[in-house]
């Protein structure tokens, strides 16, 4: 089996799900699929999806790695708020763009490293370790903005959120670019492989000389970095830092995206591409609901419904049914950790 077909096989469920969802929406909301050019900028609901997906897509990249290490990062929503606040403050204090960006990214990485310390050194369970920053983080962000929505008028920075280059909105460059860089970093070096090994069996990996701590650190740091970029996009988008609402509950969407992408929460084998498609699926649902014109009371129940269907269709059980008619469900069950969907 060639590399390409294997990739395709791996991504098929996600791609199909995405296609179906887009199809359904375009039935409900005609003109949903049309993409035009308005004042030198691609324009249309599909573009909106790609732009609006930026924050969750970025979070998804980091979350994929964290989950691959058998961890989870609940703090990234708060990290978005923190980095947004930092960026907004610096901008309104008149610092130059490079400084602002550098500092914000630095802060994001620092947040990630903090989580890394709790998880890798103090050995605190990831979900609770990151819960700490999730709770405190918004406080810190508000401390920075002193509780107000910190607005600024700096068009160069605002461009990160709403500008466009060669007709394509800048957020799209940012998340695609980040994903590419990190994806290559994972697969062109041995990082990805070692992270997977650590996630599957940390003790065995360390006995084979894998530096599990370093890997955990880098995973959480990258997660923080991605959150920082997302934070800047969100802030630039509304030309203001809304410490209380920026990235609120976004971590859940990110986790959902990763799982829809078929990476198991038990750690191990991961695919950033698949996770990103998962993110697009989530965002398509959100945007679709908006254009479809249902009353807001229905938003959640529709979202839940679709997600459940998608998850069911690509659940290991169903996959086995389709993929390996011969395979025995019992052996499946026994090797509970196994992720047919990911192979």
């Amino acid at each position, binding site marked *: 089996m060639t590399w390409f077909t294997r990739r395709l096989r791996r991504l098929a469920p996600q791609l199909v799900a995405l296609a179906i969802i887009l199809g359904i929406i375009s039935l409900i*909301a005609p003109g949903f699929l049309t993409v035009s050019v308005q004042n030198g900028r691609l324009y249309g609901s599909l573009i909106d999806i790609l732009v609006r997906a930026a924050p969750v897509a970025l979070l998804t990249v980091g979350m994929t790695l964290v989950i691959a290490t058998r961890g989870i990062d609940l703090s990234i929503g708060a990290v978005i708020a923190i980095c947004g606040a930092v960026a907004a403050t610096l901008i309104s204090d008149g610092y130059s763009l490079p400084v602002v960006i550098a500092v914000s990214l630095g802060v994001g990485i620092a947040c990630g490293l903090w989580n890394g310390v709790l998880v890798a050194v103090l050995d605190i369970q990831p979900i609770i370790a990151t819960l700490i920053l999730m709770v405190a983080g918004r406080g810190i962000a508000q401390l920075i903005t002193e509780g107000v929505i910190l607005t600024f008028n700096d068009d160069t920075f605002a461009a990160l959120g709403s500008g466009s280059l060669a007709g394509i909105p800048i957020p799209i460059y940012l998340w695609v670019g980040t994903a590419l860089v990190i994806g290559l970093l994972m697969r062109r070096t041995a990082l990805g492989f070692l992270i997977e090994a650590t996630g599957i069996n940390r003790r065995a990996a360390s006995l084979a000389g894998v530096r599990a701590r370093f890997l955990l650190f880098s995973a959480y740091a990258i997660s923080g970095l991605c959150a920082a970029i997302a934070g800047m996009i969100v802030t630039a988008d509304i030309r203001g830092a*809304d410490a209380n609402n920026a990235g609120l509950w976004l971590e859940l969407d990110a986790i959902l995206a990763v799982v829809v992408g078929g990476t198991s929460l038990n750690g191990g084998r991961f695919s950033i591409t698949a996770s990103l498609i998962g993110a697009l699926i989530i965002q398509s649902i959100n945007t679709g609901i*908006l254009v479809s014109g249902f009353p807001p009371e229905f938003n959640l129940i529709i979202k839940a419904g679709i997600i459940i269907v998608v998850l069911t269709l690509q659940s290991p059980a169903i996959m086995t049914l389709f993929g390996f008619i011969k395979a025995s469900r019992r052996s499946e069950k026994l090797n509970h950790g196994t992720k047919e969907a990911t192979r």
Partner: protein
Amino acid sequence: AQSLTVGFSQIGSESGWRAAETTVTKQEAEKRGVTLKFADAQQKQENQIKAIRGFIAQGVDAILIAPVVATGWDAVLKEAKEENIPVILLDREIESPKDLYLTAVTSDQVFEGKVAGEWLAKDVGSKDCKVVELQGTTGSSPAINRKKGFEEGIKAASNIKIVRSQTGDFTRTKGKEVMESFIKAEGGGKDICAVYAHNDDMAVGAIQAIKEAGLKPGTDIKIVSIDAVPDIFQAMAKGEANATVELTPNMAGPAFDALEAYLKDKKEPPKWIQTESKLYTAADDPMKVYEAKKGLGY
């Protein structure tokens, strides 16, 4: 008289307006030499109830509540009454027996919506007008009441129709995202004539969305919203917003007055002290209002 200790259970700091209310309340308390015990409930009723119980246990002289929701206060208010600690409600009424609290200092949310609606009706006159509505958080009482009020306001004008209505969760981000999709859904926004946002933050988001779609907010699409936070006045000055209905953040002032009067010589205040819902338009020198307001910690 030795200084009062007053507990203040605030909902949270979810919006600029909320932050301002907190600041003003603290300022008012300071002015009067009242020691204020502040508790932030992070948008959770259970936390507010815990806070109130906490205040009672400390034996404060009075309690201010900005209730997150209209229902479910009877039990804890009874406890306060038994300890005869007077309770004053800020910016929201509740569905409890009136004898459980001293008074409620609130605006009339339905009325706010009505003012906005009537302004729009007057402004567009007789020509047809498709309105898109940015609701507050689904189920929150301002969202419900401001929707109700606006619909009342435009009832008379059959030419005005609400064609789309989605929640923007009172936030700029969602306001912008929702507006974008409205524009797409309504043929590039050309046939939208006005946006009604349940708060200014969402309106600000919507304004950006409209600009990015290559339309002129304030002229191509009218913007009417509620709260009167500073940023909307900046927009108004630029002619990007048309009207906003003020919800004053100073609820504490009247509350403290009533309280002091009551404690001094048992003077029962009226059950409802209504704050005025003033309509601002481009006519009222937005920049001046902006300067006046931006100090208040919005």
